């Protein structure tokens, strides 16, 4: 699960630790849902009961929608973001609103009184909601003062008012201890004045907060602007109400605003869920093994954030780097960027650096970072695999080269050592023979000895050639192949289409290939002719040996082709054998050699 760390911590968007809990809606939340629905139903019922269906055509009659909107959105948000208190706050606003509405319609006096007292409770919670937006925390003392002002109006002052106010009918205010219309009226005026002042202060505070936010965050803070407007308008209406001035349009506007706020919040959360479906497209795109740049583009498209950048974690250096391997600084607080970690198996793999407003949509970030994690791991595995293969090829090549160097050394030793000495020895015997003159017996024995030495020399020559074909290193492939093919037991058509020398390893491999293939042909193929072609295409040396024998060559057993294939492959080349039964044999090696 990604953990989103915002760079603007003071106005951290919807987030919280361990969002894994948010998927499950708990029993208390279900209970509140039911209550809210029941309350809304009840409100509708009581309105209809008291005023008939016409009652539903005024803002007053439709008030229950506000309560329902807040309760519903709040509960939904609480379910999806369990650690953000905005959800419960909104739900509380809605529930208190509906509760008060029902109680006020009751006939029982006690309930009615309670309803009246609670009738402004929702405002306090609503103000707290606006000030806590969007991370659900109220931290500044100034905010607490504002809330306090509204609380003062809603609770103590209301209670005081209730002590003096009477309805003059049924149901009756049970708290009316000292009925006094004047005092009640004054307290009421004080309340309204306080509301107006507090509303203005609140509106200014909210507007200021919005204006100070970075552009990406302002999008997320739109609800508080609407809230500020609603509060201001509402307070103006409250004031005018005192003077019995009616503004139906204004009332509808306030009503609309109050319904809109929770719906806007709800919309934000739903949009995040909808956006998650585009992640399906992302997976299809990522299937094609994208390059790091393509990956970044695909992620940016899905997140609808063109400013997205990817940073990769390098465990061996313990640092972050960008697509090109250059070091990257993680965004710090207040930098206007947010970071979402991409983890695989509990380890950091990469980080998405994006617009902080995106943290509003944790489901989307979740899904996208999971997709990114898979793609990155895939890409990394590919890179690792290629690196390992390169390493293996390198070490294999080194081993073969070491072996060859050793054999070359041995061949040199033979040539400069035993072979030279035997020749010198033979020469010495000849000179001795000459000195001895025509003495038949000794001369014969010396001749015999020289013949033995000659045989040894012949054998040593074969050994040396088997160790390393010095003629290849010394004089090139063309020269070496001429001797080789001339000695073949089958007519050979040799074509060497290369004028310049090839790298030593390549020439030696080609030599052994032809040598081995000719041996196979002689041993197994029963051919009447063989062709040997050496050519060069682009950056590859191509060696082909084709015979017209019985085919059926087994590449695994007894043909030495496996060893040849190893040698060719260690040079980065490829060996192929076609040997259909009865159809001759073709051995072809392609070995890369840069010019």
């Amino acid at each position: 699960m990604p953990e989103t760390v915002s760079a603007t911590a003071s106005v951290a968007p919807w987030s919280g630790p361990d969002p894994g809990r948010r998927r499950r809606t708990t029993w208390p939340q279900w209970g509140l849902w039911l209550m809210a629905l029941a309350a809304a139903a009840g409100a509708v019922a009581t309105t209809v009961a008291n005023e008939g269906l016409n009652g539903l055509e005024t803002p007053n009659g439709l008030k229950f929608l506000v309560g329902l909107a807040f309760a519903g959105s709040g509960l939904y948000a609480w379910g999806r973001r369990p650690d953000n208190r905005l959800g419960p706050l909104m739900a509380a606003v809605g529930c208190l609103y509906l509760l008060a509405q029902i109680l006020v319609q009751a006939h029982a006096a006690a309930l009615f009184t309670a309803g009246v007292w609670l009738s402004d409770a929702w405002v306090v919670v609503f103000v707290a909601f606006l000030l806590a937006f969007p991370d659900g925390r109220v931290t500044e003392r100034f905010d607490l003062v504002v809330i306090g002002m509204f609380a003062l109006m809603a609770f103590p002052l209301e209670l005081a008012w209730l002590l003096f106010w009477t309805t003059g009918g049924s149901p009756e205010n049970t708290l009316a201890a000292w009925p006094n219309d004047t005092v009640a009226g004054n307290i009421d005026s004080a309340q309204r004045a306080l509301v107006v002042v507090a509303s203005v202060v609140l509106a200014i505070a909210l507007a200021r907060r919005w204006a100070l936010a970075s552009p990406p965050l302002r999008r997320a803070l739109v609800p508080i602007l609407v809230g500020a407007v609603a509060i201001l308008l509402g307070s103006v209406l409250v004031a005018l109400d005192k003077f019995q001035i009616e503004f139906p349009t204004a009332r509808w506007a306030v009503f609309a605003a109050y319904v809109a706020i929770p719906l806007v919040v709800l919309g934000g959360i739903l949009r995040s869920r909808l956006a998650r479906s585009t992640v399906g497209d992302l997976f299809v795109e990522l299937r094609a093994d994208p390059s790091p740049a393509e990956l970044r583009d695909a992620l940016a498209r899905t997140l609808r954030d063109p400013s997205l950048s990817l940073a990769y974690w390098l465990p061996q250096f313990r640092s972050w780097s960008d697509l090109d391997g250059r070091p990257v600084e993680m965004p710090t607080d207040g930098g206007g960027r947010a970071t979402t970690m991409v983890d695989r198996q509990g380890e950091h793999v990469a980080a998405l650096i994006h617009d902080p407003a995106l943290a509003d949509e944790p489901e989307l970030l979740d899904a996208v970072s999971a997709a990114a994690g898979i793609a990155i791991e895939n890409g990394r595995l590919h890179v690792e695999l290629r690196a390992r293969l390169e390493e293996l090829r390198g070490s294999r090549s080194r081993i073969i080269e070491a072996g060859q160097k050793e054999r070359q050394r041995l061949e040199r030793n033979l040539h400069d050592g035993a072979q030279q000495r035997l020749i010198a020895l033979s020469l010495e015997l000849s000179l001795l023979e000459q000195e001895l003159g025509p003495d038949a017996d000794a001369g014969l024995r010396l001749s015999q000895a020289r013949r033995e030495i000659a045989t040894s020399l012949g054998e040593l020559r074969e050994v040396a050639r088997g160790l390393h074909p010095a003629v290849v290193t010394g004089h090139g492939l063309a020269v070496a192949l001429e001797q080789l093919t001339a000695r073949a037991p089958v007519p050979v058509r040799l074509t060497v289409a290369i004028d310049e020398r090839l790298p030593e390893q390549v020439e030696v491999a080609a030599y052994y290939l032809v040598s081995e293939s000719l041996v196979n042909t002689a041993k197994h193929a029963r051919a009447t002719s063989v062709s040997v072609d050496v050519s060069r295409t682009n950056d590859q040396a191509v060696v082909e040996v084709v015979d017209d024998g019985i085919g059926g060559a087994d590449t695994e057993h007894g043909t030495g082709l496996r060893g040849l294939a190893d040698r060719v492959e260690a040079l980065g080349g490829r060996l192929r054998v076609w040997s259909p039964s009865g159809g001759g044999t073709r051995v072809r090696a392609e070995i890369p050699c840069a010019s």
Partner: protein
Amino acid sequence: MRVVIAEDSVLLREGLTQLLGTNGLEVVGSCATADDLLLKVRSYSPDVVIVDIRLPPTHNDEGLRAALEIRAHHPDVGVLVLSQYVEVGLAMKLLADSAEGAGYLLKDRISDVEEFIAAVERVATGGSAIDPIIVSTLLTRQREDDPLAALTRREREVLELMAEGRSNQGIADKLVLSLRAVEKYVSSIFGKLGLPSSGRDSRRVLAVLLYLRS
């Protein structure tokens, strides 16, 4: 006859010097590198040079390259290349377009004193000396058609010795035949192979080798 030797093995250098000395040839210079050899050839103008195909520093083909250079710039100096391995291709490289004053022998041959001295003298006087193994490799090469089918066994023997660079007299001595018999065989061979009969021994060496190689 004045000889310069280029050989990096001290043993063989000494041995060769002694061998040539006791057989009437004068070793006017001996060295161990190709550069040294070229220097000595310029200084002493020998009749023939005996050079190991494999010389320092890389021990690849310094000797051969020096031989080719001497052939190019000092055409009157015979070059006899000694090698521990037999390579048809190398012999052909050395001969290029003329077998005159050129020789390629397996190093082992030096212990066959008579033959070796004869070969050195041949090369010094503008003839050729090609190692028998080279010739037999070419002769016994498997071919789809056998161009030598028309030759008799005796003629093949004569052909072989011809290809080694021997003179008619040399062939006669080797096969214990009369000179006239050899001459007859030679013209018969040339006729059967369709080769133009040529004057100098070295010319026919090249002709035969090229013929056998194709």
